C-alpha cells in the first residue's frame, strides 16, 4: 500500500522514520523547529520530538556544521538543514577541513555521521543566493558522499539511508521539485530499498544515454518523451559521489552516445568528470563526443533571466541533436 507524497513530504516522513528508529538522530538548523523549515520539510518534528532533538540553531552555518560534528563525535547522528544552497558557504571551513577529513585523520577511530540537507537549484523565481547548484564543490572533496533525489520514493528512502551511513552525506534536495507527487510504499523494509549509491535507469532506450540527477531528471524524461526520432535512455544518477559507473558504462556501451545535463555551471561541473571517465572507459563504443548541457559559466542571474540560464527542455533536445551530428 502506498502513500501519496510530495518530495518534500517524503523527506519529512523519512526524517520521522529515522528519528523513531534511532533516538540518536537529531535535526538542527535555522527555523527547523516551530516553523518546520522554510520549505516545511521538518514540519511537525519539533512538536513530536521536542527541542532536544529538533534544534532551532542560532543563525550561523559554520556554527551549525561545527556543532553537528561535535554532536556526532559524542555519538549522535545530526541531520543539519542548510536553509538555501547559497547559505552553505559560511560553513565551508567546517565541511571541507573537518567533516570530510575526520575519519582519515583519526585513522578510522572517529566517525562523523552528519547529514547535510541542502535545498538546491533554481527555477523558483528567487532573489540572489537562493538558486545555486554547488554540488561540484562537494564532489571535489574526498570524504563526503553526495546524493540527490528526483522523486518521492527516493526522497523517503535515501534520507534514511543517508542518516544510517557512517560517512558524512551531503543530501541535495531539488527545491523546484519539492511539490512533485507520487506513491511511496512507506511500509516496505528499508533493506529492500535501492542502495543510495546506485544509479537508476529511469527510462530505457537504445540510441543515446541522457544522464541527469535531481531537478533535471524530470526535464530529461520530458526530453525522452518529446524526441520521437531517437530512443533516449534516461539515467537518474542519484549518487554524485561516488558515481555508479557500472550502470553508466553499461548504458553508454549499449547506446554509443552520452549527453549529461545539470543545473550546475559547465566548467568543472559533474558532467566534466563523467565525460572524462566515460571517454577513458568506453572510448571504442562512443559514436560521438560526450555532450554537456549545463548552466553557463556565469553567476546565477537575476530571476527574470533564469529560464534562459537553466538548461531546459529545448536545450536538452538540442544537446541530443548535437550528439547525433557525428
Amino acid at each position, binding site marked *: 500500500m502506498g502513500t501519496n507524497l510530495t518530495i518534500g513530504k517524503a523527506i519529512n516522513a523519512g526524517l520521522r522514520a529515522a528519528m523513531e528508529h534511532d533516538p540518536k538522530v537529531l535535526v538542527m538548523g535555522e527555523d527547523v523547529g*516551530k516553523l518546520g523549515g522554510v520549505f516545511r520539510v521538518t514540519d511537525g518534528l519539533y512538536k513530536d520530538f521536542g527541542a532536544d532533538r529538533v534544534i532551532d540553531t542560532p*543563525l550561523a552555518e559554520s556554527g551549525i556544521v561545527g556543532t553537528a560534528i561535535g554532536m556526532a563525535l559524542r555519538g549522535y547522528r545530526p541531520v543539519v538543514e542548510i536553509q538555501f544552497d547559497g547559505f552553505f558557504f559560511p560553513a565551508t571551513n567546517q565541511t571541507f577541513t573537518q567533516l570530510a577529513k575526520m575519519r582519515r585523520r583519526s585513522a578510522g577511530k572517529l566517525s562523523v555521521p552528519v547529514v547535510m540537507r541542502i535545498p538546491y537549484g533554481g527555477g523558483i523565481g528567487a*532573489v540572489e543566493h537562493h538558486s545555486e547548484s554547488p554540488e561540484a564543490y562537494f564532489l571535489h572533496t574526498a570524504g563526503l558522499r553526495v546524493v540527490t533525489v528526483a522523486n518521492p520514493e527516493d526522497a523517503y528512502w535515501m534520507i534514511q539511508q543517508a542518516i544510517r551511513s557512517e560517512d558524512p552525506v551531503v543530501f541535495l534536495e531539488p527545491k523546484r521539485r519539492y511539490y512533485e507527487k507520487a506513491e511511496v510504499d512507506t511500509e516496505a523494509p528499508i533493506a529492500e530499498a535501492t542502495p543510495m549509491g546506485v544509479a537508476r535507469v529511469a527510462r530505457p532506450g537504445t540510441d543515446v544515454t541522457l544522464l541527469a540527477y535531481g531537478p533535471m531528471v524530470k*526535464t530529461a524524461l520530458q526530453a525522452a518523451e518529446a524526441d520521437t526520432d531517437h530512443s533516449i535512455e534516461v539515467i537518474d544518477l542519484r549518487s554524485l559521489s561516488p558515481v555508479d559507473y557500472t550502470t553508466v558504462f553499461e548504458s553508454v556501451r549499449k547506446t554509443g552516445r552520452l549527453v549529461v545535463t545539470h543545473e550546475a555551471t559547465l566548467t568543472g561541473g559533474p558532467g566534466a568528470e563523467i565525460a572524462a571517465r566515460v571517454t577513458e572507459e568506453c572510448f571504442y563504443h562512443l559514436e560521438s563526443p560526450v555532450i554537456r548541457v549545463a548552466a553557463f559559466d556565469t553567476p546565477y*542571474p*537575476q530571476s527574470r*533571466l533564469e529560464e534562459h540560464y537553466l538548461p531546459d527542455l529545448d536545450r536538452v533536445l538540442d544537446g541530443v541533436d548535437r550528439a547525433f551530428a557525428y
Partner: protein
Amino acid sequence: MSDTTAHEEPELIQLLTPEGELTGHPDYPLDISAEEVRALYRDLVLVRRVDSEAVSLQRQGELGLWASLLGQEAAQIGSGRALRDNDMAFPSYREHGVAWCRGIAPKELLGMFRGVTNGGWDPHALGFHLYTIVIGSQALHATGYAMGVQRDGAVGGENGTAVISYFGDGATSQGDTNEAFNFAAVNNAPVVFFCQNNQWAISEPLERQARVPIYRRAAGFGFPGLRVDGNDVLACLAVTRAALDNAREGNGPTLIEAFTYRMGAHTTNDDPTRYREAAELDEWKAKDPILRVRRYLEKNGLADEEFFASVDAEADKLGEQVRTECRSLPDPEPLDIFHEVYAEPNTHIDQQRAEFADYLSSFEGVGAEGGR
C-alpha cells in the same frame, strides 16, 4: 536552561514617548526645528507607503518577493538622516528607509525584488552599498571600508568620513558579524554597527540568538554599545549622529541596538502565524513609530491638518508612481547573463555568449517556445 537575560530591561534611550511627549535625553541633546520634525514625519509616511505598495505588488505577481520594513521606519529614517553625504552605508536587504534617505529611487529596490537586476544603483555615487543577502557579510565590508577611510586620512575633524553597517538581531550570531566587531575594535575603525533588533529572525525569537542584550556584546570587544528605542525617530537620529561623529573624529566604533519590532511577515513568503502570538503585535502597535511623531506635532501645534493631508496626498502620488514604475521595469535581454562577469575580455564567456546568441536566433521565426 536558565531564564534568558536577553530580556532584562536595560536602559532604553528614548527622546519621544509613544504618546508623543518630547522628554529629551541628557546624553543626547537634540536641537531640532519643527520643520525638521515635519520632514522626518514625511519620510516615515512615504517609506511606509513604498513598502505597503511593494507588498501589494508582490501579491499581484509583479515582484518575486518583498522584505517589508513595517515597524522599522523610525530606526531606518532616524539613522539614515544622521548620515552625511560622504558617509558610506552597508545595508542588509530590508533597509528601504535608509535607501530612501540616500536617494535610491524606490524602483531600484523593486527591480531587485522583481528579478530584473541584482543591484542597480551606483553604491559609490550614493554612499549606499548594494543590498547583501548572505547574513553578516556586509559588517566586514563596512569595517574594511572604514579601515580604508583611516588610511586615506579621512578620519578626524568636522569633515571626517564615517561608515555604518546595518544588520539584524539574527545576524549577531554569524561569525562574520563578530569578526567585524573585533576587526573594528582592534583597528579603531570609524564604523557604526547599527543592529535593528526586530525581535525575530524569521521564526526564531531573540532568545535563540543571544543570552545577553545585544548592545552589551560591544563591551566584550572593547567599544561602546547602547540600546535605543528603535521606534523613536528622534532618538535614533540623535544616537546615530553622535556615534557617527565619534567615529569620524577618530574615536572608533559603536554598536547601536535599535530595539524595534518586525510588524509584518519576514518576507512575503513567510507566515508568522505559525510561530508568534498576535498579542505581541498589538503590544507593539501601541508603540508605532509614525503615530508618536504625529501626536507630538499635533499636541504642540507644530503641524496642522493641511500638512498631514498634504503628506498623505504625496504618499498617494508616490504609491501610484511606484506601481507604474514597477510594472514598466523592462526585463533584461537574455544575453545580459554574460555581462559584467569579468573586468577584462574573457574568451570563454565570449564563446558561450556567441553560442547562446546563435542558439536563440535558431528559434527566430520558428515560433518555438523555450521553457520547461
